[in-house]
């Protein structure tokens, strides 16, 4: 009832007040620019001058950095190492590691790609933190996205936090029966393993129940539906969206332009 059912963090900020579509476009724009801009330092700059400041403006910086440190940086670090070692480009060898040559070019290449991935994942994280999933979906369905599609996305976004909440209640049940969770990690994992079945099947059953519940309320009806919940779309939203689209077009054009 009170558990967190998505990544969304409710705060009062200008970012939270933006229309959901604006935030989707912002995310896509950041990613497209990071991948198409011909200038080498673009992705790095995007992280420093766009994504990090935005997380402060959106008042989700603590949550953002937590995710970044736990998930995004390790993944990007791994990608960096793989590419630095296995990318056969350039011949300015910096050092040798057995049969692997690490060249200056491969380092540069790996650094940029890892940062691009950071931009991609952190832009998405930022969007999920500041956008309520159901608000996003009702806005998109109002603009013509098929309801079935929205449903699939929403249930996928919710399944992880739901399972997490469920696992949490079962862990407190186990502690109430004397399981020492301050004890070893292995013992804890051991006591969690029989949970996987019930967790997965329980979640699947929940998805089915929800499908029946929404069908009972005319989900697949072809009639145009009204919405209880008005999602504001200001003219400033439209200006931001067009501005972003122009930036993306510029970036792609610069990339294609034979200079």
């Amino acid at each position, binding site marked *: 009832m*009170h558990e967190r059912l998505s990544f969304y963090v409710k705060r009062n900020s200008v970012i939270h007040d933006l229309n959901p579509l604006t935030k989707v476009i912002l995310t896509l724009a950041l990613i497209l620019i990071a991948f198409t801009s011909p200038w080498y330092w673009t992705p790095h700059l995007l992280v420093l001058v766009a994504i990090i400041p935005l997380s402060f403006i959106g008042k989700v910086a603590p949550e953002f950095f937590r995710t970044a440190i736990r998930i995004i940086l390790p993944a990007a670090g791994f990608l960096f190492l793989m590419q630095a070692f296995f990318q056969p480009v350039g011949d300015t060898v910096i050092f040798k590691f057995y049969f692997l040559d690490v060249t200056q070019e491969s380092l540069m290449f790996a650094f940029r790609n890892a940062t691009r991935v950071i931009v991609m994942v952190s832009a998405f994280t930022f969007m999920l933190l500041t956008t309520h999933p159901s608000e996003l979906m009702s806005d998109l369905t109002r603009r013509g996205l098929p309801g079935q599609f929205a449903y699939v996305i929403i249930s996928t976004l919710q399944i992880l936090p739901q399972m997490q909440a*469920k696992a949490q*209640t*079962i862990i*407190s*049940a*186990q*502690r*109430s*029966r*004397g*399981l*020492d*969770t*301050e004890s070893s990690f292995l013992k804890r994992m051991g*006591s969690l393993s*029989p*949970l996987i*079945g*019930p967790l997965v*099947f*329980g979640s699947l059953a929940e998805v089915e129940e929800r499908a029946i519940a929404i069908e009972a309320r005319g989900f697949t009806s072809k009639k145009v539906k009204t919405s209880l919940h008005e999602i504001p779309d200001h003219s400033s939203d439209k200006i931001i969206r067009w501005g972003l689209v122009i930036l993306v077009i510029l970036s792609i054009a610069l990339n294609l332009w034979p200079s």
Partner: protein
Amino acid sequence: MKIEINNLRFTYPTGLEALRGISLTIEAGEQVAIVGQNGAGKTTLVRHFNGLLQPTVGSVLIGDWDTKKYSVAKLASRVGYVFQNPDEQLFSKDVGTEVRFGPRNLGYSKEKIDELVTRALALTELSNKTETNPYDLSPTWRKMVALASVIAMDTPIVIFDEPTTGQDAVNVARIAHVIAKLRREGKTVVTITHDIDFCAENFERVIALASGQVLLDGPAREILGQEEILAQTYVDPPQLTRLGKKLGFKETVRSQEEFLNSLKNSIDASQSK
């Protein structure tokens, strides 16, 4: 074992103050029912007894242990807690393993564990279902598994959170039987319930909570007679109690037997006039 609650206040991280200054003593071997409307704070209160929640202000003592100083796992040797929803409590692949989980964690000897498990299974009439996966059982039997898994821990204090909700009459009788057995063993039993008949028939002391505070506390007979005050927390006394009152019985009646006795007495009295 005694439970002592001193000026307990609790605020959820959401900022909602669910308990607003509760002081209670529950003596060893007492059978207490807690009633009150949805959201009165019943579950929040009992979750303090085994340390799942820690007081924001005040203290909770279980015997001589302050719950602040002991982990939930440690407190489990003194307080058994049957959750409101068995599905949040069961996780093993068969009933036998489920019931063994608690006593095994408490570090009893092998023989003691076997004995406790066998007894708990017999008491809950699950002896022929030990190999079954709890998820293949009906909700009523899952509830019994939840009960058995806590009773097997043989704790001096046992807490039931709404044991009879959604149960059929046969199973309610089974649960009452379990509670009677625990009483005979001298255990302290605290039960949250919305089932006022169940409360009237099985408990000697009733505590009524309303928005995080104790509204009424005393012998069941006295409390169930206070229709107007109980109405503040949306609790209706049992039908027979109310009927007895309407009929002008001097005593507050709680069960069919008491009702029939009082009825007989008043008929006798009016005939002898």
